[in-house]
């Protein structure tokens, strides 16, 4: 009897948890990560190119967003900003915080990847007459992004799981959906494990995609010089 009851809860809750996963968690991750990459490339490039002023701005941004808890950032934006008249809906607030937070980490990943490209690659570009921008776009960035791909995939996987924090600012994503079902059914162990497994499923898909991507990128080897 008890087993059937539990099974019914699992089956019943599965779609109720997965659905917000598909409609909230995944879009939130994709949109935020895309914006994060954009921010990261910009923040990494202005540092790499040593653009005065902008470089300091990028360092400041990374310092702040890496140095404070993600949860605090979410609370400041969603619960704090209304105090000074800035009201942002839960979903855009989450996108804003996640992209700025993740962007700070990814900026460091991309900056170190840019710096790992040997100086000779740049000089060879100069010697065949290419401009700074042409060399960056066609020689340095492709090589750097290839180096950065595994750690960036890492960040993406971490982000999928971090989106569960958005439940705290009333984004009805997977974790919040689970909490609601727990409140109704009083089966926290079962349901929290279930939602954990769904996160694991998402991460596994990403891990698989990462492996495919790395394979594709390995057309040119990884040796020095």
């Amino acid at each position, binding site marked *: 009897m008890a087993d059937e009851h539990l099974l019914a809860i699992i089956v019943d809750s599965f779609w109720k948890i997965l659905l917000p996963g598909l409609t909230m968690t995944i879009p939130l991750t994709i949109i935020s990560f895309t914006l994060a990459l954009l921010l990261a490339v910009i923040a990494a490039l202005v540092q790499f190119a040593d653009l005065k002023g902008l470089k300091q701005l990028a360092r400041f941004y990374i310092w702040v967003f890496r140095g404070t808890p993600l949860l605090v950032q979410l609370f400041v934006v969603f619960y704090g900003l209304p105090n000074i008249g800035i009201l942002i809906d839960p979903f855009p607030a989450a996108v804003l915080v996640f992209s700025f937070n993740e962007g700070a980490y990814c900026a460091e990943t991309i900056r170190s990847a840019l710096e790992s490209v040997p100086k000779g690659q740049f*000089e060879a*570009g100069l*010697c*065949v007459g*290419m401009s700074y921008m042409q060399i960056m776009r*066609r*020689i340095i960035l492709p090589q750097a992004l290839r180096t950065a791909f595994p750690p960036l995939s890492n960040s993406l996987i971490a982000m999928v799981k971090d989106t569960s924090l958005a439940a705290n600012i009333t984004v009805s994503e997977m974790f919040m959906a689970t909490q609601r079902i727990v409140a109704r059914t009083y089966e926290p162990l079962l349901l929290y494990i279930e939602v954990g497994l769904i996160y694991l499923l998402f991460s596994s898909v990403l891990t698989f995609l990462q492996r495919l991507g790395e394979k594709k990128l390995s*057309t040119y*080897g990884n040796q020095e*010089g």
Partner: protein
Amino acid sequence: MLEIKDLHKSFGSHEVLKGLDLSVQQGDVVAVLGPSGSGKTTLLRCLNFLETAQSGTMNFDGDLFNLKYITKKEIASVRKKTAFVFQNYNLFRNKTALQNVTEGLIIARKLSKKEALEKGMYALDKVGLSAKYDAYPHQLSGGQQQRVAIARALASDPEIIYFDEPTSALDPTLIGEVLSVMRKLAEEGMTMLVVTHEMNFARNVSNKVIFMMDGEIIETKTAKDFFNNPEQACIKTFLRTYLNSDEGSQSYELRRVNEEV
């Protein structure tokens, strides 16, 4: 064709080049010799603006430039007529052999793709690597990479090619193939300025030798004169060290490739 006057270059308080004068005529193959740390590589890098000189003038094809205040536009115009071969090849790692050769032609010189491909294949053929056009640098040996780098230099029809110790990073067995490509270029009349430790190349292929020491050019002579009638004591010592090691302590293979060259 190329004339340098009073070239000075310091890194911090360390003066690496102490006022060099040098001239290269069209068709010259100039070997730049000298002990390590004498400033040979820095000289070459200054000539292609990979380093900015503190002072000095350059006369390239009748155009006069102040090396300290040279503008980006002027740099671009000189680079268009020159090419550079690095010690460690510096092939673009994310490009195939052919793409390495055509990249500059298409992107910097705005050649049509078709024209660039033709030129690229022709250049690769010249260094004996047209069959490897599709290979990425990591799939090639050091000698092959350096030959692709020479093809890349050739493809832009430069008036002069700078070689910065082109065989120093190579396994002794691979030096010969690179030197013979360079010899072929020299015979075809390409103007070349070659920093090298290959005494046989300097002796047999170059027509002029520049000897550097402590940031100064202390001797400029024809290759024949330099090797047959060394006058200064330090050059005699230098030659003794290098020629002895060329003939004495080297492996059989190296001696053989040197003989070929």
